[in-house]
């Protein structure tokens, strides 16, 4: 006889996020009638402390042995609730979530239908959890070394943070020197600190730190292993292969400037005095602002949002270009007091500390701010005639005055967008992180967990995660470093236990699973004539489970029984309810 199960079900309102579209009270009432469900409650915020305490209290009072929470996506709060179960003395795997926010209340518009669907998702979770079993967490030792991919300001900051606390760092840089884009910058906004004065001492500290091993001219191909125990082989510039072992990875691979050659209006590559923001930065660094002809420009125009905020190029805002453009105006004004400066912009985005003030200061320095329509009407640059007394003319409809204007220019600086690196996808594959549509890496949670990723032990910081300025990059780098130091300090980390196991009694020895496993985690025991799973190598994808002809392989926490009964639960309610 099957032993009795005691399930508690909690339906979250998520304030009004769920309750507005789903009749949560009705869901709890109906689900409460299902077999094995001891109590079913609705509550305003299940993830809040009182919400979790409610579960803990009920587990103790009603002797619950399993808990279903029907709320947001398990990707957000599964761990929160598993911890609550643990606090109440239950195994964390005796938990299941039904996603009725992202999959129901936020995407449907009919309250009746939404409520019906919510019921069937919760019923499916109740069915599934009946088959859940306790799983014991496995802990592994952490290799205290860390690999950092990218030697720009983010990678350097993380390396120093960890290296200075006495832990080993492998710092991998694809170029022949450290420093990244910051090495090409003259002054930084909004306080006009010299980039060299920021960067050079840090690079020196890195090179002098015995804990930090720097590999230049080096790319990452493949990384094997899992949190605590990764390894890779690299071939640095000198051609000798090196094997590295480390417990954590920080990806700080940065970004690259957009090539404006694709925007015909701007004539980059055809008009010699149209240059990119990076090229202008080089001029500032050399202290010589001159046209291709070697003359001091009498008119300089700075065009904003080149390749940003426009569906034809990149839809996103590159974040740092507005402030960099204002910085250019400031530097131009001090270097060339009589030159006309035009800021041709779409909107000025002066985010961040000191930036709005910087904008206000700049606008008092005799600089013309002209607004154009970034979405539908980009400025057009053409070569001027001799009588125009300038090299080029920029033509556009100025939005604030409504007038069609022509701006004279001897030099045009294009504030180019920042985009993902060429090899962003390769790195993503090597370390197992996901990319958004713009090929920036996706963090574990955009608000609650902005530097971790869904792969344990892999962190993303700086420009590879999205365009950002120096302080933001450094903050992220140090945040990731702190996270890693904390795990190294504990010395051990819990790893997923949702691996595969073979039931030797029914394994027929066909070895199909051995062939499909992507991690060579399954081997064949000749003596016994059965397959054996190496649990350290297994990552729990479940591919073996769905190939096994005899059902001898069980994917823990995603067993056939669990999924089949989940399907049954989904369908039973949807049919019953449809007939009503």
């Amino acid at each position, binding site marked *: 006889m099957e032993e009795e199960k005691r399930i508690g079900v909690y339906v979250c309102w998520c304030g009004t996020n769920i309750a507005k579209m789903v009749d949560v009270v009705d869901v709890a009432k109906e689900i409460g009638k299902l077999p094995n469900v001891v109590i079913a409650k609705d509550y305003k915020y299940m993830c809040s402390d009182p919400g979790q305490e409610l579960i803990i209290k009920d587990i103790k009072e009603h002797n619950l042995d399993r808990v279903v929470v029907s709320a947001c996506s398990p990707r957000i709060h599964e761990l929160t609730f598993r911890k609550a179960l643990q606090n109440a003395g239950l195994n964390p795997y005796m938990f299941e979530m039904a996603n009725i926010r992202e999959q129901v209340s936020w995407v449907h518009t009919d309250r009746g239908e939404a409520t019906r669907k919510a019921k069937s998702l919760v019923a499916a979770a109740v069915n599934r959890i009946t088959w859940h079993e306790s799983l014991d967490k496995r802990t592994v030792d952490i290799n205290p070394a860390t690999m950092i991919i990218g030697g720009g300001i983010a990678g350097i900051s993380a390396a120093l943070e960890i290296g200075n606390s006495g832990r080993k760092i492998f710092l991998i840089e694809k170029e022949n020197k450290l420093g990244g884009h910051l090495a090409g910058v003259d002054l930084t906004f909004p306080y006009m600190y010299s980039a060299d004065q920021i960067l050079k001492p840090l690079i020196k500290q890195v090179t002098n730190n015995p804990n930090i091993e720097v590999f230049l001219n080096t790319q990452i191909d493949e990384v094997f292993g899992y949190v605590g125990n990764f390894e890779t082989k690299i071939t640095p510039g000198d051609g000798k292969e090196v094997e590295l072992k480390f417990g954590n990875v920080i990806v700080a691979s940065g970004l690259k400037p957009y090539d404006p050659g694709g925007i015909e209006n701007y004539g980059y590559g055809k008009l010699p005095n149209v240059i990119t923001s990076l090229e202008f930065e080089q001029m500032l660094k050399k202290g010589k602002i001159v046209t291709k002809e070697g003359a001091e420009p009498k008119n300089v125009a700075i065009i904003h949002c080149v390749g940003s905020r426009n569906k034809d190029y990149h839809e996103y805002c590159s974040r740092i270009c507005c402030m960099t453009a204002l910085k250019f105006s400031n530097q131009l004004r001090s270097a060339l007091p009589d030159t006309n400066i035009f800021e041709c912009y779409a909107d000025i985005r002066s985010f961040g500390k000191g930036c709005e003030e910087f904008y206000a200061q700049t606008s008092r320095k005799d600089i013309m701010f002209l607004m154009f329509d970034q979405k539908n009407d980009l400025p057009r640059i053409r070569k001027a005639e001799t009588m125009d007394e300038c090299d080029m003319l920029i033509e556009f409809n100025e939005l604030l005055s409504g007038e069609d204007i022509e701006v004279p220019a001897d030099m045009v600086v294009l504030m180019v967008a920042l985009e993902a690196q060429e090899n962003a996808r390769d790195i993503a594959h090597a370390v197992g992180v996901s990319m958004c549509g713009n090929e920036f890496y996706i963090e574990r949670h955009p608000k609650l967990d902005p530097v971790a990723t869904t792969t344990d032990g892999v962190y993303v910081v700086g420009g590879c995660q999205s365009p950002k300025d120096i302080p933001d990059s450094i903050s992220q780098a140090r945040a990731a470093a702190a996270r890693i130091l904390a795990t190294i300090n504990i010395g051990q980390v819990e790893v997923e236990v949702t691996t595969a196991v073979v039931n030797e009694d029914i394994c027929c020895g066909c070895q199909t699973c051995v062939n499909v496993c992507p991690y060579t985690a399954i081997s064949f025991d000749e003596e016994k004539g059965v397959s054996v799973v190496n649990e350290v190598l297994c990552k729990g994808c479940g591919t073996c489970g769905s190939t096994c002809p005899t059902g001898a392989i069980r994917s823990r926490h995603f067993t056939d029984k669990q*999924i089949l009964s989940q399907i049954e639960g989904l369908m039973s309610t949807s049919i019953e309810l449809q007939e009503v």
Partner: protein
Amino acid sequence: MSYEPTIVAFLCNWCSYTGADLAGTSRMKYASNVRIIRVMCSGRVDPTFVLSAFKEGADGVLICGCHPGDCHYHEGNYKCLRRYHLLQKYFQQMGLDKDRLRLEWISASEGRQFAELVDSYTETVKNLGPCKMKQVIETLT
């Protein structure tokens, strides 16, 4: 007269489930006929899961995985693709329309694509009419 199909969808945790979550956080609206089951990888979708969905009364089954080359476990989606083709052949022999099963790649950033897929696939299954599998099995047994 109008019948509302029920569609069971198997979504891999890493790309497709995240993509569906994104459709949610972006408040995109789509047909409520789809019921999602999370699996770690599309490679976990055992053919018996698909068949049992029909046995329980589903009118269509949708499988979503990471784009080729992007599977979190390297190649689970390729395994899934092969099974999908086999299953579709098998479907024809059983007298089931092969459109009752659909495999699509949805990345973590493709919330919109997911919403559109659900809408268009719901339409497809609606046009196929109710699936009789459950009834047939019930009369046979």
